[in-house]
C-alpha cells in the first residue's frame, strides 16, 4: 500500500507538470506507471489494472504525438488517487467512473491506431499524388552549392555502403541467423533512408525504407533470411545504385535527380514478402532446435504458447524447464543463432585521389634518384667530413623508408576483387541451375591498385568459365559420385616476389580430346602434331577458340581465354593451367607485385644499358660458333637446346651496335614473347635488378621497343625493353 501511495503521489506531481510536447515528463509517467503495475499488481483490482494499462497506452500515444489531452491524464490520475483513498478506507469503489475514464483513454484509440497502422497505405496515397509533384520538386528546385556538395557526399558514401551490403549479404545467406551480419546490412539502408529523406530523394528513401523494414523483421527474428529475401535485397541494392547513379548524373547535368527508374515493382515484391512473413511468423530458435533434432515441433509450439503467458521467459528457458531439451543443446542452438564473433573492427581510412598518390610515388622515385646522384657527387665523395656522411646515411634511410611506404600505399588487398566474384558465382549458379560453393583464401594479399582494376575482367572470365564449363549440373555430379554442390576456390598468395592467384574448380576438367579436335578444326595445329598436356591446355588461349557446346549468356561466345591471356600479359603476368580430367581444373595467374617496379636483367650493349624484363627471359648463354647458323632469307639463327631461334641485333632495331660483332664473342639472351622466341645479342649481363619504371614522358610515347626508362643504382639511365615492340621491329627489318 505504501508503495502504491508513493507511486501515485509521484504520478500526481508528474501529471501536474505535464504539458503536450513535454517528453521527459511523459517518460517519467510511463515509468511510474510500469513500476506501479509491477510492484502493486497483486493488490490492485482488475479495473484498476485496466485503468493503468489504458493510461499507459494513452501516454504512449501522447509521446508519439497522437494524443494531446493533458486534462484527461490528470483526470485519470486523480481517479486512481480516489481509488487508492477508497481502498485505504475499505470502501467499495465506483467502477462506473473508472470505466468511463478507461473508455475515454481508449476512446481515441480506434482513430489513432488506425492512422498508425496504415503507414503503408498512407505512403501509397502519398505516392499517388507524389510523382508529378515529386518531379517538379526535384527538377525545378534550384540546387544551391551546399545542396550539391551534400548530394555528392551522399552519392559517394551511399554507393560505398551499398557495395558493402552486397558482400555482407552473401555472408548472410550462409549464416542467416547471424544478427551481427543482419545489423551491418541494416545500418546502411537505415542511413541511406535517413539522408535521402532529408535531401528529398523520395524514391531512394522509399526503397531504402522498405528494405529496412524487411531487415528489421529479420533482425527481430520474425522472418528468416532465405534466398528469396537475399535476392530481393540484392535487387534493391542494384536499383538503389541506379537511382543514386542517376542522382550523380543529375548533379552534373542539373536535370531530374532520380531519373525515371521505376521502383514500384520491387517495392511491391518486398511488400509481398513482408505480408507473407506476417502470416507465418516463425521463431528461429525453436526452428534450430527442431532442425537439430533436440525437440519436436509440438514441444516448441507448446513452449511458445507458454511463453505468451509469461513473456519475460525465453523459449529456450521454457524448454529447459519443461525438460524437453537439455540446457546444453539450447545453449548451442543459441550460439548458432547469435554466432558471436562480435562487431567487426572498423579501420580509419582517408580517401586520396589516385593521381595524388601516383605523384607521390613518382616524386619519391625522383628523390631516390636525386639522393643517389648526391651520393656520387665528386665533392661529396672526396669529402672527409664525418658529419656529412652521417647525414647522408640518415637521408639514405629516410628515402628508402619513404619509398617503401609510398609503394605500399598503392597496394590494396585483393579482397574486393574476390568479393565481386561471390556475387557473380551466385548469380551464375542460380541461372544455370548448378549448385556452387565459392571459397576463398588469402583475400588480404596485397596487390598494386592498378593491377586490381585490370585483374577484374580476366578474373570474371575465368570464374565464369569455371562455373559454366567446369562445374557440372547436380545430376551429372551425382552420376559420377561427386557431392552435388560444386566448389570453386579462389586463392591468392605471395611467392618469390610474385602474386599468385589461383582459380580452382572441382568440375569435369578440361577435355583434351575436344580441345585437340577443335584446334584441328580451326587449323590452329597440324593434324599429326603430338603435344604435351600443357601445350594442349594452352591452346584454349588461342584467339577464337571456344569449346563450349552451348552458348550461354556469359561464356562461350568465342571471345574468351585469349582475351584473358592478353590482359594478364599486359600486367606482365602469365597464366598456367592445370587440369585433372573429371576432377577439375586450376588456373594459376602469376602477377608482379606492382606495376611500378619491374624485375629485369641489366645488359650492356656498347655504351648503353638496357633492362630485359625477367618475365620474358628464357635463358642467356654464350653460344659456340657451331650453334650459329646463317640462313639466307631467314637471317641469323642460334641453336638453343636443339631449337633454332632467330638472332636480333640491336643495331637493327635501335641503331646501336654491340662491341662484339659475333655472337660467340658476346652473350645471347633468349627471350619469348607471345609464343615467338628470339635471341638478343648483348655484350655483357651486368646483373639482375628491380627497377622503378618511369615513363619516357609525354613527348616520347611513340617509341617502339621501349617500355620505359629507369635509373640504375649507379645513377645511369637505362631503357626497359618492350618485347612486343622488339619482336615487331625485328621482323620488320628482317
Amino acid at each position, binding site marked *: 500500500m505504501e508503495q502504491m501511495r508513493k507511486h501515485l503521489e509521484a504520478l500526481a506531481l508528474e501529471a501536474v507538470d505535464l504539458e503536450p510536447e513535454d*517528453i521527459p515528463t511523459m*517518460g517519467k509517467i510511463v515509468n511510474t506507471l510500469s513500476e506501479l503495475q509491477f510492484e502493486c499488481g497483486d493488490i490492485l483490482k482488475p479495473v484498476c489494472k485496466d485503468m493503468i494499462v489504458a493510461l499507459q497506452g494513452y501516454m504512449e500515444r501522447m*509521446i508519439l504525438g497522437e494524443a494531446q489531452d493533458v486534462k484527461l491524464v490528470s483526470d485519470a490520475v486523480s481517479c486512481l488517487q480516489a481509488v487508492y483513498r477508497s481502498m485505504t478506507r475499505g470502501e467499495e469503489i465506483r467502477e462506473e467512473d473508472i470505466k468511463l475514464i478507461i473508455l475515454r483513454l481508449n476512446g481515441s484509440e480506434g482513430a489513432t491506431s488506425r492512422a*498508425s497502422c496504415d503507414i503503408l497505405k498512407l505512403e501509397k496515397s502519398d505516392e499517388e499524388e507524389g510523382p508529378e509533384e515529386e518531379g517538379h520538386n526535384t527538377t525545378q528546385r534550384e540546387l544551391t552549392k551546399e545542396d550539391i556538395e551534400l548530394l555528392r557526399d551522399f552519392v559517394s*558514401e551511399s554507393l560505398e555502403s551499398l557495395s558493402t551490403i552486397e558482400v555482407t549479404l552473401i555472408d548472410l545467406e550462409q549464416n542467416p541467423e547471424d544478427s551481427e551480419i543482419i545489423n551491418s546490412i541494416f*545500418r546502411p539502408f537505415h*542511413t541511406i533512408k535517413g539522408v535521402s*529523406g532529408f535531401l528529398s530523394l523520395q524514391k531512394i528513401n522509399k526503397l531504402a*525504407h522498405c528494405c529496412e523494414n524487411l531487415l528489421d523483421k529479420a533482425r527481430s527474428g520474425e522472418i528468416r533470411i532465405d534466398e528469396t529475401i537475399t535476392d530481393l535485397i540484392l535487387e534493391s541494392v542494384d536499383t538503389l545504385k541506379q537511382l543514386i547513379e542517376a542522382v550523380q548524373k543529375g548533379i552534373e547535368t542539373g536535370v531530374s535527380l532520380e531519373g525515371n527508374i521505376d521502383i514500384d515493382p520491387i517495392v511491391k515484391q518486398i511488400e509481398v514478402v513482408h505480408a507473407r512473413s506476417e502470416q507465418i511468423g516463425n521463431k528461429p530458435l525453436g526452428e534450430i532446435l527442431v532442425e537439430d533434432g533436440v525437440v519436436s515441433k509440438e514441444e516448441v509450439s507448446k513452449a511458445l504458447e507458454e511463453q505468451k503467458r509469461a513473456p519475460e521467459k525465453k523459449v529456450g528457458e521454457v524448454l529447459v524447464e519443461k525438460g524437453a531439451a537439455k540446457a546444453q543443446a539450447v545453449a548451442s542452438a543459441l550460439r548458432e543463432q547469435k554466432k558471436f564473433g562480435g562487431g567487426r573492427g572498423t579501420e580509419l581510412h582517408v580517401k586520396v585521389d589516385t593521381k595524388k598518390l601516383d605523384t607521390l610515388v613518382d616524386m619519391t622515385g625522383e628523390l631516390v634518384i636525386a639522393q643517389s646522384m648526391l651520393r656520387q657527387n665528386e665533392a661529396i665523395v672526396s669529402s672527409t667530413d664525418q658529419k656529412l656522411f652521417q647525414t647522408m646515411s640518415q637521408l639514405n634511410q629516410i628515402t628508402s623508408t619513404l619509398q617503401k611506404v609510398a609503394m605500399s600505399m598503392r597496394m590494396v588487398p585483393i579482397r574486393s576483387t574476390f568479393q565481386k566474384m561471390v556475387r557473380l558465382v551466385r548469380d551464375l549458379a542460380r541461372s544455370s541451375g548448378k549448385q556452387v560453393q565459392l571459397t576463398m583464401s588469402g583475400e588480404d594479399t596485397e596487390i598494386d591498385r592498378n593491377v586490381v582494376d585490370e585483374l577484374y575482367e580476366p578474373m570474371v572470365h575465368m570464374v565464369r568459365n569455371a562455373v559454366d564449363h567446369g562445374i557440372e549440373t547436380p545430376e551429372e555430379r551425382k552420376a559420377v559420385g561427386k557431392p552435388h554442390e560444386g566448389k570453386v576456390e579462389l586463392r591468392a598468395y605471395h611467392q618469390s616476389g610474385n602474386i599468385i592467384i589461383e582459380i580452382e574448380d572441382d568440375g569435369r576438367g578440361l577435355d583434351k580430346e575436344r580441345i585437340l579436335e577443335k584446334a584441328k578444326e580451326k587449323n590452329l595445329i597440324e593434324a599429326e602434331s603430338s603435344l604435351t598436356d600443357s601445350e594442349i591446355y594452352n591452346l584454349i588461349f588461342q584467339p577464337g577458340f571456344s569449346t563450349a557446346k552451348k552458348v550461354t549468356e556469359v561464356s562461350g561466345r568465342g571471345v574468351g581465354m585469349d582475351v584473358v591471356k592478353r590482359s594478364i600479359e599486359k600486367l606482365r603476368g602469365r597464366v598456367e593451367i592445370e587440369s585433372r580430367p573429371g576432377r577439375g581444373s586450376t588456373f594459376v595467374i602469376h602477377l608482379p607485385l606492382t606495376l611500378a617496379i619491374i624485375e629485369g636483367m641489366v645488359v650492356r650493349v656498347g655504351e648503353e644499358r638496357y633492362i630485359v624484363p625477367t618475365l620474358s627471359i628464357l635463358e642467356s648463354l654464350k653460344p659456340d660458333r657451331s650453334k650459329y647458323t646463317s640462313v639466307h632469307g631467314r637471317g641469323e639463327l642460334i641453336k638453343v637446346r636443339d631449337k633454332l631461334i632467330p638472332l636480333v641485333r640491336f643495331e637493327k632495331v635501335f641503331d646501336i651496335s654491340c662491341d662484339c660483332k659475333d655472337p660467340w664473342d658476346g652473350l645471347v639472351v633468349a627471350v619469348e614473347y607471345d609464343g615467338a622466341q628470339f635471341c638478343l645479342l648483348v655484350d655483357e649481363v651486368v646483373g639482375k635488378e628491380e627497377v622503378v619504371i618511369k615513363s619516357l614522358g609525354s613527348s616520347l610515347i611513340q617509341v617502339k621497343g621501349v617500355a620505359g626508362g629507369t635509373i640504375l643504382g649507379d645513377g645511369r639511365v637505362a631503357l626497359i625493353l618492350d618485347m612486343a615492340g622488339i619482336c615487331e621491329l625485328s621482323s620488320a627489318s628482317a
Partner: protein
Amino acid sequence: MDMGMTVLVVDDFATMRRIIKGVLKDLGFKNVIEAENGKVALSELKKEEIGLVIADWNMPEMTGIDLLKALRSDDRFKELPFIMVTAEGQKANVIEAVKAGVTNYIVKPFTPDTLKQKLEAIFG
C-alpha cells in the same frame, strides 16, 4: 537559448552529421562538435562541457539508446538535454527512448523547422 553552448552531434554517417551541423549553425549555434558513435560521444562528454546531445539511434560500437542509458545512469548527465534523431519511427522505439529518459526525439527525415521547434520546446 544559449547559442554559445556546445552541441554534440552523434551519428555514424558523416553526411547526416553535416546536415545536422548545418541546421544548428543556421539556428545560430556556434559550437558544434561531432562523434561517430556512442563510444566516441562518451569520451567527448568526459572531455568537454556539453549542453546538448543530438544522437542517432542506430550506430555501430554503441547505439544512441545505449548512449542515452549510459548517460542517464550517470549523475552528472541525468539532466543533460538529449535529442534522439532516428529513422526508427516505430512506436516501440520511441517509447523505449522516452522511458530511457530522452529529452525529445525527432524522426528522420526531418526539416530544419522540426529541429528548431524541438529545441525551443526544450530550452524555452
